């Protein structure tokens, strides 16, 4: 159990949080029309007669949107309803051309499921926790209103109108901002794995309605407020923090919480009541008579299941078990689709370049990727997606290290050159003469020189100051411009120093 509490004047308060996540389904065309869904197009350029709700227009559902919602449901081990249907949610707003949103109230496509958020001591999540997911239903997105273009008018852009959304409704199972943040992050991770939503929160592809209430421990649920369209993990957490303390303040000063829709203001980190949506809610849901019930057959469901990728929890377990990675490395590498895709490609290339099994080179690849490569990319301010080198190139570099052609420290230098020039590692090593020296004769000659020049230190060493060993290694490597094979250098030094 989370121990997150709001300390009020009258004692501690618990927070109860439920999230409704609207995730834009990845599809080329809209849920009920064939107009495009691409982000950032000219206003009203991706609007069909259907999206604009011209008289006599009718909806025809997009198979891909249904498929992606089903796959998402399967990924959270939810019940998939083979019989579902679309309902109309009736209300008037300028971003809603039909005067109703086609959604699913009575018979959603996806029923009960769950996901697990991982323990994170630092964040105040002492143990893994299962968060219930009540349902996922498919619905139309609304258009967009712009208020700043004209002194007395708002402008309506319907490009987004009719884009498919999955509304993923959690149980009120979260009790701290950290848990809610972890839930959103985990959900986003799963959606991106499944490929049903790109998870681009800054583009509005994933938005959260945050339901918050507070109560004294052991008491029934308090009245909740719903803060709409919060579009980052951080803002979700801020919303909860602000809203929970606001509610405690209201209650402790003798007030009542009004069940209402609120808006999060990122500039102040606070929430405020949303005037435009204060109307009495009576959405008059009823089955959309333009659409028949949606009936899915076993073949469709089987195809959905067969197309599911390895999911985050399973992948992490495999990285730790089969590949022998540390829990930390496994978590880092499975955090996102782009990361594991890079890692797995690198791993395959590295294994084949060195003629080994993936499990034999996994640690090398993982360590290098996390400690060397991410750091180097960071310095350039780049992400994996726009990495200047490919995983084939990276695998070649790792193979050079693996075979002892270059040392780990030379590899860092080679990587930098690769970033600058785009050349392959082998070419750079050859051109700049960075090959490691393993010839014992040559190394012995250098060692002899060093020992001769530092007779005093040799004496001290032999008298017992063994810490000087490192000094001799350093001097030898320096004399060999870093190219001496460290293992051979060590062996020769040990032998000569007795």
């Amino acid at each position, binding site marked *: 159990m989370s121990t997150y509490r709001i300390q009020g004047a009258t004692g501690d308060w618990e927070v109860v949080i439920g999230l409704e996540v609207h995730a834009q389904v990845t599809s080329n065309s809209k849920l009920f029309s064939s107009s*495009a869904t691409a982000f950032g197009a000219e206003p009203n*350029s991706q609007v069909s*007669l259907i999206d604009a709700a011209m008289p006599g227009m009718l909806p025809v*559902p997009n*198979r891909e949107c249904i498929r992606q919602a089903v796959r998402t449901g399967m990924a959270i081990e939810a019940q998939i309803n083979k019989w579902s249907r679309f309902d109309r949610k009736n209300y008037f707003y300028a971003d809603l051309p039909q005067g109703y949103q086609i959604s699913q109230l009575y018979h959603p496509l996806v029923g009960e499921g769950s996901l697990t958020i991982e323990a994170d001591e630092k964040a105040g999540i002492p143990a893994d926790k299962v968060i219930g997911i009540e349902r996922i239903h498919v619905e139309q997105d609304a258009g967009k209103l712009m208020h700043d273009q004209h002194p007395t008018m708002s*402008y309506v852009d319907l490009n987004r109108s009719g884009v498919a959304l999955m509304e993923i409704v959690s149980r009120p199972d979260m009790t701290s901002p950290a848990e809610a943040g972890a839930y959103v992050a985990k959900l986003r991770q799963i959606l991106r794995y499944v490929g049903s939503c790109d998870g681009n929160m800054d583009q509005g592809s994933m938005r959260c309605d945050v339901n918050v209430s507070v109560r004294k421990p052991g008491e029934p649920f308090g009245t909740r407020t719903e803060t709409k369209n919060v579009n980052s993990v951080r803002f979700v957490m801020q919303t909860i923090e602000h809203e929970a303390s606001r509610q405690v303040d209201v209650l402790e000063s003798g007030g009542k919480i009004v069940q209402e829709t609120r808006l999060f203001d990122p500039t102040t980190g606070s929430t405020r009541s949303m005037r435009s949506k204060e109307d009495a809610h009576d959405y008059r849901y009823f089955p959309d008579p333009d659409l*028949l019930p*949606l009936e899915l057959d076993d073949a469709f469901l089987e195809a959905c299941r067969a197309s599911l990728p390895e999911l985050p929890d399973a992948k992490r377990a495999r990285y730790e078990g089969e590949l022998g990675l540390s829990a930390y490395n496994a978590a880092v590498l499975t955090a996102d689709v782009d990361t594991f895709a890079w890692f797995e490609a690198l791993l395959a290339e590295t294994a084949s370049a060195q003629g080994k099994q993936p499990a034999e080179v996994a640690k090398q690849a993982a360590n290098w990727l996390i400690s060397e490569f991410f750091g180097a990319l960071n310095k350039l301010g780049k992400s994996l997606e726009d990495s200047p080198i490919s995983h084939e190139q990276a695998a070649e570099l790792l193979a050079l290290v693996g075979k002892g052609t270059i040392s780990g420290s030379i590899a860092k230098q080679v990587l930098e050159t690769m970033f600058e020039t785009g050349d392959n590692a082998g070419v750079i090593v050859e051109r700049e003469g960075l090959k490691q020296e393993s010839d014992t004769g040559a190394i012995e000659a250098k060692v002899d020189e060093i020992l001769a020049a530092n007779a005093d230190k040799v004496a001290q060493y032999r008298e017992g100051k063994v810490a000087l060993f490192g000094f001799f290694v350093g001097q030898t490597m320096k004399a060999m411009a870093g190219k001496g094979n460290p293992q051979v250098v060590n062996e020769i030094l040990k032998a000569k120093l007795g």
Partner: protein
Amino acid sequence: MSVDTATVAKIASLARIKVSEAEIEAMVPELNGILAWVEQLGEVDTSQVEPMTAVIPNTLRLRDDVIDADPLTGGDKRDAVLANAPAAQHGFFGVPKVIE
């Protein structure tokens, strides 16, 4: 169930139809007449009946995910979409300013 003036006013507001006091007064008996008449359906025992979902047996077809598959259902037709708009401006539909 019957409606009074307050209910009619509330329904009219939900339906976004402006009605005067006099119109509401006139509508109350009219709507009550119709409602009383339709309420005879309550006599029918439907405890074993599923509500109708499709008037003619038919299954919902799903379409392929192809952009602008048909010019009649696709986008990229801003002029056509805005052609009848009472206040089209700069490619947008204009409405009285909304305060959210």
